[in-house]
């Protein structure tokens, strides 16, 4: 059995399920935000909406979903294209850099959203 230390959950079925569930959460969040914007909103009501506990939890849930979803998706892309088979012997090091870079960027985005939504207001 193939296992990969940089994959999100180390399990194929778990990664697959997480990617489906997180995509539904992201869809719901997108519809919520897009719906609000389309219906017309001014700054004060937008700020008031995002200050409710419900919306702050929803936003955190969405950004965590985005991080997990992107981690699994980009990990698949890197293990498809950035491989020794495709790019030669240096590819393994390059892939590790890509994977660790992705994980760090995603973690920074999550922490940033936590800082904006939960700490600074």
């Amino acid at each position, binding site marked *: 059995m193939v296992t990969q230390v940089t994959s999100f959950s180390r399990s194929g079925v778990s990664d697959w399920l997480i990617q489906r569930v997180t995509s539904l959460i992201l869809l719901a969040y997108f519809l919520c935000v897009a719906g609000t914007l389309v219906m017309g909103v001014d700054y004060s009501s937008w700020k008031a909406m995002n200050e409710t506990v419900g919306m702050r939890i929803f936003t955190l849930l969405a950004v965590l979903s985005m991080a997990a979803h992107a981690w699994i998706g980009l990990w*698949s892309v890197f293990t498809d294209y950035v491989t020794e088979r495709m790019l030669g012997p240096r590819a393994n090091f390059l892939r590790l850099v890509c994977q660790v870079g992705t994980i760090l960027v995603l973690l920074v985005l999550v922490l940033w959203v936590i800082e904006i939504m939960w700490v600074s207001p």
Partner: protein
Amino acid sequence: MLQVSIYRYNPETDKAPHMQEFQVDTGDKDLMVLDVLEMIKGEHDSSVTYRRSCREGVCGSDGLNINGKNGLACITPLSEAAPDNKLIIRPLPGLPVIRDLIVDMSLFYAQYEKIQPYLQNNTPAPAIERLQTPEDREKLDGLYECILCACCSTSCPSFWWNPDRFVGPAGLLQAYRFLADSRDTATEERLSNLDDPFSVFRCHGIQNCVNVCPKGLNPTKAIGHIRNMLLNRAT
């Protein structure tokens, strides 16, 4: 006249592969692509190399890339493959070329071996055969007919990128053939061998395999069944 372009590569004499052109007189008959290859080999250039055996779509030897689509040369008519009288024949994509239209199928067979394509049953052998109900036997329809021609796996981008780790549509169709067999008792072991991020889950359901299968089988559907079995087992 049929214009034929064939992929040529002899590693002993060629530095790189090239395409060779032939003009073939088919007498306006709707020949099979294999017939055209036989005419070229017999009348134009005897060094053109390809695999063939039964010439009736049973052995799976002559899987080729015909005008961009994988198929068996022996059962692909010119009217279907080359309606504009231009025929481009290449080896199956994604596998190393040994010579001309012959590819090295080792990786393909290694994946087939990995799924343990034989019945495993740990209960005492009965005095007669292990019987199946007609309903249980029906579950194997659409699975057992695979002739391992590799048209599906070599049309699958996931198999091109990871032929050593993704089992591929042909192997997974056979994996499900044994998972679905009422006489097989190794279901748990078979599933745990497939529950990694590569073996099954590199299938993204683009259905190239379904599009090219010369036997009309549906590996994507079988892969969906395996995924559901893995999901039911894990949740």
